[in-house]
């Protein structure tokens, strides 16, 4: 589910939606209007797919929580719950901001350039500043898997540390509303390229190791060792 989300997200939201990279905050209203009017069809398609497939992030998160639950043997399942909520609520900003971009592409010819600009801005502000929801997912995941007492942990400890690191790195997004150009702007090297790449890498790494963990749990269950 995770990689499917990722692929669709990149293709639909990113490429078709003209979000990779994001349009510069330095564009004028007229430039933004021109963008929406000329690319309306493509943006619409991209956003429709983006909205349809956004939920996969939650489904993916559910599989992670199921693995986490096998380690929560003392009845305290707050971390697995935080993870699934974090993953689930990450879907919301993706859905909502995609709907803003979609709105911009719906009848751009009738809308004022400043409104089109606002729609684009609003979408980015939402998706970026919702970072903490995803950070919670990453912290919960990392902390829980680090507490694994097995000799060989279910998920390698470095994956947990990477997860926690990405969760922290997202904090740089708080600078995004203050800058229209440079590193910290929505299209900047830090707040776009680095932040999104480390998120995508997180999705891939966690997917790989969750699949391995599931396989291992199934083997152990078959051998009569599961709880």
């Amino acid at each position, binding site marked *: 589910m995770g990689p499917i989300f990722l692929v669709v997200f990149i293709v639909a939201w990113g490429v078709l939606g003209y979000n990779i990279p994001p349009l510069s905050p330095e564009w004028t209203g007229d430039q933004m209007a021109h963008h929406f009017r000329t690319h309306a069809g493509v943006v619409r398609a991209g956003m429709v797919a983006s909205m349809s497939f956004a939920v996969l992030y939650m489904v993916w998160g559910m599989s992670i929580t199921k693995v986490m639950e096998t380690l929560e043997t003392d009845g305290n399942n707050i971390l697995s719950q935080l993870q699934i909520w974090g993953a689930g609520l990450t879907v919301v900003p993706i859905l909502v901001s995609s709907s803003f971009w979609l709105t911009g592409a719906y009848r751009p010819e009738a809308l004022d350039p400043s409104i089109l600009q606002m729609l684009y801005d609003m979408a980015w502000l939402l998706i970026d500043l919702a970072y903490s929801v995803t950070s919670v997912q990453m912290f919960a995941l990392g902390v829980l898997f680090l507490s694994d007492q097995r*000799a*060989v942990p279910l998920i390698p400890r*470095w994956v947990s*540390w*990477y997860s926690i690191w990405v969760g922290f790195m997202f904090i740089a997004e708080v*600078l995004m509303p203050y800058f229209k150009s440079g*590193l910290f702007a929505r299209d900047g090297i830090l707040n776009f390229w680095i932040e999104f790449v480390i998120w995508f890498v997180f999705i891939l790494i966690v997917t790989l190791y969750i699949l391995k963990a599931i396989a291992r749990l199934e083997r152990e269950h078959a051998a009569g060792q599961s709880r």
Partner: protein
Amino acid sequence: MILARTPDHSRMENAKSAPAIWTFITADVMAFGMFFVLFMRQRTVDPALFNSASMKLDVRLGVINTLILITSSWLVVLGVERARRRDRAGLLRFWAIAMAVGAGFAVTKCIEYADKFSHGVTMLTNDFFMFYFFLTGIHFLHFLVGMAALGFLWFKARVEPLDGPYLGWLESGGIYWHMVDLLWVMLFPLLYLMGRA
């Protein structure tokens, strides 16, 4: 039935001498390395501005900050050595002093920031200060996390057995703290010295 195949075992052996926190350290150090380079690249656009802005920083506070972190790091090392010898009292003593010294960093940082803000200098003032506040700010967040980690570990160290996995956590906490020190060691000349040399 067997929990691990050979690759896992050998990885476990290595894990003993390279705790998994090194992944976090690597990622963070690489990220900061990139920030340093981005800072220097931005500087080439207007080096005179960067130099003159840098001169507005109080270099003595920068030096004090460096000495504080270096000393705090050293004390943490001494504490870990005590822990390895199962000397709980020694560990607690050294780490308490390390945290007390480290707290000085927060004091000087507040003084510096307060001084800048009172003169109307913020992240939006110019490119140098954008980087100054970003770099020192994100470093300060790391510092706060480090202090919290040291504090948490210290409290648990009063009761945890020192010959088990807890020693590993202590070592990891120490490694993270040294990273905070190391990053500042690199930041100090870039922000405080380069402009006035």
